[in-house]
């Protein structure tokens, strides 16, 4: 059994007990425990079920590489699936539950899958479930989906907060082990701005567990002194519980800080996402131990040798009473020695190497631990827990030489540097034969914008597995980086005492000649149930690329992303293909290093402000007056202002009626307002718009069209000439940012020598449309001395002055067909002006109206709306807007495109009005059908509706649309389709339904 030892545990506080629960059982641990340590201390080695076969799964590792110990954690709005118990710090009241089983962890129906494992090899689902066809969707897929998946889906909205931090540093060091600390000391002393990150809560990494002595003292002392020294440096920042998640182009790094996962009662954000710009990055990310492939290596109780050492030394937890160590290297002997010193039984060390004569093996022997060289594990015995191992010769086929009772196995197949962050942004790797691992190739480092390397690896992340070499590499790289940054460096040598180690011998399958029965019980990927035999099958079937093998077998695609399985899998594949491992290559390392929460990615931008929320100066008034909102870009605009029990349609009808008969008020502040200014402004405007804008007189307005390079109409709006070199361009609400960018694109990339500035001043002005027969009376009532008479300020004129006490620009423009003044006042005066209009307008029944009334009134007038009449395929000529295209100009954006064959084809769909014969409203988006079908069997069409409304003014349905040769077919009756297959008979009419002579707007 696994249990808590009576003494020891460098990270736990035995005076501080914590209560937690696992699958409803109440358990106890100590402050400083990880959940995995606490579970093991309570003899809970079985912690989950595997993905495919639902095999029992125990804790394997002690860190981020753990594939098995995944938990449903927390409750309600704080529930989270797939939390790794090995990286979860224990806290009071923690609730955890194991995953992927039914009805219980101990007795899981899904475990029947393992008895069928023989017919469920890698990729079996590609070869079956093919017939009968409907069965995949209705039978097979639901079963597979239900048995796959891991944790439960959260149900509630997350109640936690998240935030983002931004940092700019000279040197970012990822990893707070001794290599990272040493690099930080050197860079820090040299005066560089340093940020040092450590993913766990503790500094120093493995060195203290491995019993290293630094400068003649225990590693812990050097670590504490160094951390204190770093904390004292103003130019150095240290962050624990903060993982380097991803390295991106140009020294951009993402880090993931877990602020309150260990202290959930704290009123602080749960996670913090760091966006760091670093001139130089040092990865001091350490190395991860590899499992060995022997039959039954997935049975709970089989763990990484170093992880066992971690649990014993850090948490005083013994994974088993009798632990067999199996290895191909010297390092695992440290575990045997640590277990021995903790008073635990190590029945033997199984070493696959022919001899083991290094300092550590000799030390183990001296302690009386039997060492069996040239030996392998033929098979692990047990079901939900290891009960023993059968041994055999490594060189043979697995005939059992002896059996040893044990309840834990510590395995070590050597170590692989953590090269993920090095590789994210293109860093390349070399294969190192001595240690049998990939390590960073400094000649092919990630390259920054200036052509120089910006990532360096140190310590075991760079393949230095002996502690002295770790310090030396950290000193060398730290010095090099500081020098590269133009800093002076003073280093003090660090001396490490520790045993020398003999090289490992590569062992990818144990025993070497294991038959297929055994190979189909050797797990490579514990979570996804990928075995040695699966990789061999993939290779045999021609899935030879490492990417094919990965995808065919799902090797390395589990939540640990192959941290334990990749190298072992590659070695099997290479062997099967008779290739060297580096020839097979690795799969691509993708961010993040370990999974990061979606909440952290989103940060503070949640709910109402998940995107920027833009408010006009009148926004609160609208809110207070019951506006029904419509999102338009990042704005919200009132769709209508329903009163009492009114429906939206009734409100819209009332707003239109009031406007057409007396007075309506529209908040038009969202309308884009872009100033174009400079000596070349006229020339620029002539290129931008299809119209001739340079001849516009100050004091006048002109309706203008803007086309894309491809000739399609992209925006429209009224341009006012402010003075000789200043134009004010009104754009659509949704188009303002895009059009401003479009202007800048041309100015900066093509016409960079033109003397023009542009500025988006949309938010500087509140703009209110005062519309209706009483519009002039209302403004005159406010006073202020502007002459608003038809002669002084005619249609399409504008003037500046005072309306009442307000500083106003008044534009005589109309989008409704009524007498209309659009009055712009500085944004700060907007609300007061609006209030003043309402107060003075009471006698005229001044009625605020929304976007829907605006749309209906413009449709009644046959005015086009960008986005309704246009869709990226429509040119101004289609819309009867040829009059707005200057024939005198040599060029404008879109001119050449509009001369292309298809654009000048007379057989285009053109703007007309449409009226159903029965007065009903045509459905949105319906098409005018034509005879027959096309070559692909689709019904032929001859037009479509672009805007369709009930007109309260005319008491019938009105529509405008685009119809083939439309303007030549007035009065003709054509059919529009319904989605149910029916048709609606419709007459082609003029698109101007209301006041065709324009008498209303020109008074």
């Amino acid at each position, binding site marked *: 059994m696994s249990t808590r030892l009576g003494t020891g545990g460098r990270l736990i506080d035995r005076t501080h007990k914590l209560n937690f629960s696992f699958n409803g059982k109440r358990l106890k641990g100590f402050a400083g425990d990880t959940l995995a340590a606490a579970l093991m201390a309570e003899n809970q080695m079985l912690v989950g079920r595997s993905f495919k076969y639902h095999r029992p799964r125990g804790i394997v590792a002690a860190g981020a590489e753990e594939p098995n110990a995944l938990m449903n954690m927390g409750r309600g709005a704080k529930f989270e699936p797939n939390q790794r118990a090995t990286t979860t710090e224990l806290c009071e009241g923690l609730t955890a539950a194991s995953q992927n089983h039914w009805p219980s962890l101990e007795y899981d129906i899904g475990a029947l899958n393992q008895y069928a494992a023989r017919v469920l090899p890698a990729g079996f689902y590609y070869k079956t479930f093919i017939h009968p066809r409907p069965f995949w969707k209705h039978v097979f897929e639901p079963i597979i989906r239900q048995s796959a998946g891991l944790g439960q889906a959260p149900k509630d909205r997350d109640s936690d907060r998240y935030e983002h931090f931004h940092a700019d540093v000279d040197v970012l060091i990822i990893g707070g082990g001794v290599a990272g600390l040493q690099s930080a000391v050197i860079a820090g002393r040299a005066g560089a701005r340093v940020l040092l990150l450590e993913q766990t809560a503790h500094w120093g990494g493995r060195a203290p567990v491995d019993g290293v002595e630094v400068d003649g003292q225990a590693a812990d002392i050097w670590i504490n002194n160094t951390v204190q020294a770093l904390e004292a440096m103003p130019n150095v920042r240290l962050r624990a519980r903060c993982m380097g998640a991803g390295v991106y182009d140009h020294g951009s790094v993402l880090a993931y800080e877990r602020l309150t996962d260990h202290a959930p009662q704290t009123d602080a954000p749960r996670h913090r996402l760091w966006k760091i710009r670093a001139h130089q990055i040092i990865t001091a990310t350490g190395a991860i131990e590899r499992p060995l492939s022997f039959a039954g290596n997935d049975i709970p109780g089989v763990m990484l040798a170093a992880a066992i050492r971690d649990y014993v030394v850090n948490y005083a937890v013994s994974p088993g009473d009798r632990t067999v160590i199996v290895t191909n290297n010297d390092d695992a002997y440290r575990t045997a020695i640590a277990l021995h010193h903790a008073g635990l039984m190590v029945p033997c060390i199984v070493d696959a190497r022919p001899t083991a004569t290094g300092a550590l093996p000799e030390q183990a022997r001296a302690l009386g631990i039997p060492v069996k060289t040239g030996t392998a594990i033929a098979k692990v015995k047990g079901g939900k827990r290891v009960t023993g191992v059968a041994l055999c010769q490594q060189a043979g086929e697995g005939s059992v030489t002896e059996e040893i009772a044990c309840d834990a196995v510590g395995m070590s197949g050597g170590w692989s540097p953590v090269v993920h962050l090095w590789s994210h942004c293109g860093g390349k790797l070399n294969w190192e034969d001595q240690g049998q691992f990939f390590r960073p190739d400094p000649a092919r480092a990630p390259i920054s914008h200036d052509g120089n390397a910006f990532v360096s690896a140190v310590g075991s992340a760079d393949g230095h597995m002996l502690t002295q070499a770790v310090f030396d590499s950290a000193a060398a790289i730290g010095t090099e980086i500081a020098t590269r940054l133009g800093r002076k460096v003073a280093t003090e040598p660090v001396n490490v005492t520790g045993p020398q180690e003999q090289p490992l011998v590569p062992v990818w399958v144990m025993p070497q000649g294991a038959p297929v029965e055994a190979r189909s019980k050797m797990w490579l990927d514990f979570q996804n149930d990928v075995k040695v035999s699966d990789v061999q099958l993939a290779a*045999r079937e021609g899935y030879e690329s490492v990417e094919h093998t990965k995808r065919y077998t799902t090797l390395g695609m589990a939540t640990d992303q192959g941290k334990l399985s990749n190298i072992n899998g590659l070695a099997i594949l290479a062997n099967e293909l008779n290739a060297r491992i580096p020839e097979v290559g690795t799969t691509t390392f993708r961010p993040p290093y370990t999974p990061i929460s979606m909440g952290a990615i989103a940060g503070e931008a949640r709910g109402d402000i998940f995107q920027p929320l833009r408010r006009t100066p009148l926004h609160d008034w609208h809110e207070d007056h019951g506006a029904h909102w419509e999102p338009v870009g990042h704005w919200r605009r009132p769709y209508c202002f329903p009163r009492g029990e009114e429906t939206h349609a009734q409100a819209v009808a009332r707003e239109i009626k009031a406007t057409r008969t007396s007075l309506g008020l529209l908040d038009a502040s969202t309308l884009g307002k872009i100033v174009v200014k400079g000596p070349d402004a006229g020339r620029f405007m002539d290129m931008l718009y299809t119209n001739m804008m340079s001849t516009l007189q100050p004091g006048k307005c002109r309706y203008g069209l803007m086309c894309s390079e491809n000739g399609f109409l992209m925006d429209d709006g009224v341009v006012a000439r402010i003075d000789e070199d200043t134009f004010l361009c009104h754009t659509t609400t949704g188009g303002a940012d895009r059009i401003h960018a479009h202007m800048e694109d041309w100015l900066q990339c093509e016409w960079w020598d033109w003397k023009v500035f542009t500025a988006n001043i949309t938010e500087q002005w509140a703009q209110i449309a005062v519309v209706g027969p009483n519009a002039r009376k209302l403004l005159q009532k406010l006073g202020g001395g502007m002459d608003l008479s038809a002669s002084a300020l005619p249609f399409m004129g504008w003037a500046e002055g005072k309306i009442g006490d307000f500083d106003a620009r008044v534009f005589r423009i109309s989008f409704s067909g009524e007498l209309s003044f659009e009055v712009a006042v500085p944004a700060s005066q907007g609300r007061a002006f609006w209030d003043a209009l309402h107060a003075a307008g009471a006698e005229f029944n001044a009625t605020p109206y929304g976007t829907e009334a605006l749309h209906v009134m413009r449709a009644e007038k046959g005015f086009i709306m960008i986005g309704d009449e246009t869709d990226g395929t429509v040119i101004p000529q289609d819309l009867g807007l040829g009059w707005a295209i200057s024939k005198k100009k040599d060029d404008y954006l879109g001119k050449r495109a509009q001369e292309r064959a298809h654009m000048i084809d007379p057989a285009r769909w053109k703007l007309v009005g449409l009226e159903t014969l029965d007065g009903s409203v045509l459905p949105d988006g319906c098409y005018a059908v034509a005879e027959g079908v096309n070559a692909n069997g689709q019904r032929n069409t001859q037009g479509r509706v672009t805007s369709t409304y009930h007109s309260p003014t005319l008491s019938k349905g009105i529509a405008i649309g685009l119809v083939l040769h439309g303007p030549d077919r007035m009065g003709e009756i054509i059919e529009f389709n319904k989605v149910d297959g029916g048709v609606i008979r419709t007459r082609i009419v003029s698109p101007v339904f209301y006041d065709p002579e324009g008498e209303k707007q020109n008074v």
Partner: protein
Amino acid sequence: MRRYSAFAIAREAFRHHLGWERAWASPAPKSRYDVIIVGAGGHGLATAYYLGKNHGITNVAVIEKGWLGGGNTGRNTTIIRSNYLQDPSAAIYEKSRSLYENLSQDFNYNVMFSPRGVIMLAQTEHEVRGYKRTAHANALQGVTTEFISPDRVKDLCPIINIDGPRYPVLGGLWQARGGTARHDAVAWGYARACSAMGMDIIQQCEVTGITAQGGKVTGVQTTKGAIGCAKLGIVVAGHSGVLAEMAGFRLPIESVALQALVSEPIKPCMDVVVMANTVHGYMSQSDKGEMVIGGGADGYNNYTQRGSFHHIEETVRALIETFPMISRLKMLRQWGGIVDMTGDRSPIISPTPLGNCFINCGWGTGGFKAIPGSGWATAEMIAGGAPGPLAAAFGLERFREGRFIDESVAAGVAH
């Protein structure tokens, strides 16, 4: 080719699966083929497959620089739908979707086509009108779609938040017969079927030049030597511009990175595909349990298969508002692919200025769903020497004539 079936698996189980043959052969190139297809992604392999199946042309090589299916075929979010607006798009995507329905049976390889349904959310009045238009167009195009209410959206996808706060769901365009498929299996299934017809799939063979005589293509130079051909099909997506340059013409193509990400796997909670174009994000749940998430393309041209993080951030924000429960899921992996975009965001299936050289590219962000239909149409063009009805509108000349096929109304976001 030995057929795959439950019986075959049971038989093999007795001998520990030692008797399975290769899914596809790995031959050395011959000196000459009737047709060479450059690019062993989904589109290239499908082209080869339908050349053999529909036109009896089997002396075909498919040449691949890396590994088959290793480009965008294996990097997308596996969505299949045909609810397009414009006639030519609807025709080819619907052809493709209908071929997907029988693909597993057609070539005896389970591509796990899952017609679970696709909803495109309408979250602005403008989108409501746009999708109603698409529904009307689809009704005339033989594509079954329906504009559905917010309540129906919620029924189909209970984890969705239809109440805003910023963009309440106003309805959705529902294509019940859209869905997903296992992307790798599509490439592998086509490769196995092509190999079984005697075609040569030559991996790790980069084309370094295109040879021509008298204005007609005669073959390709490769890292495995010169290979002759009567006809050449270029089907290389992101690197189309590079191959076109070798063939002596230019393409109106820009290449940009498109990113995707998956969460850690969870038990089934989402049975449909949801696309939210207003907020720029889409999500579905894979059979493995991962939430598969995609968003918009990066705003700058790029050949690296990486993207910038801020796009991921915007996509995740949008989807947390749409599906609040994902906030406490974790991003397992993000990746990028290079998509080849044309000016009108529609593909190119076309003869080229070089005689007997044809090109298929420009699928942009929507290529996976098109694989069978695209292969069908491209094979028809290569076999007959001129585009058939499915490909007719997608010729290169449309850029010169201004005959764009712009789907911006229906596909404002990557998909």
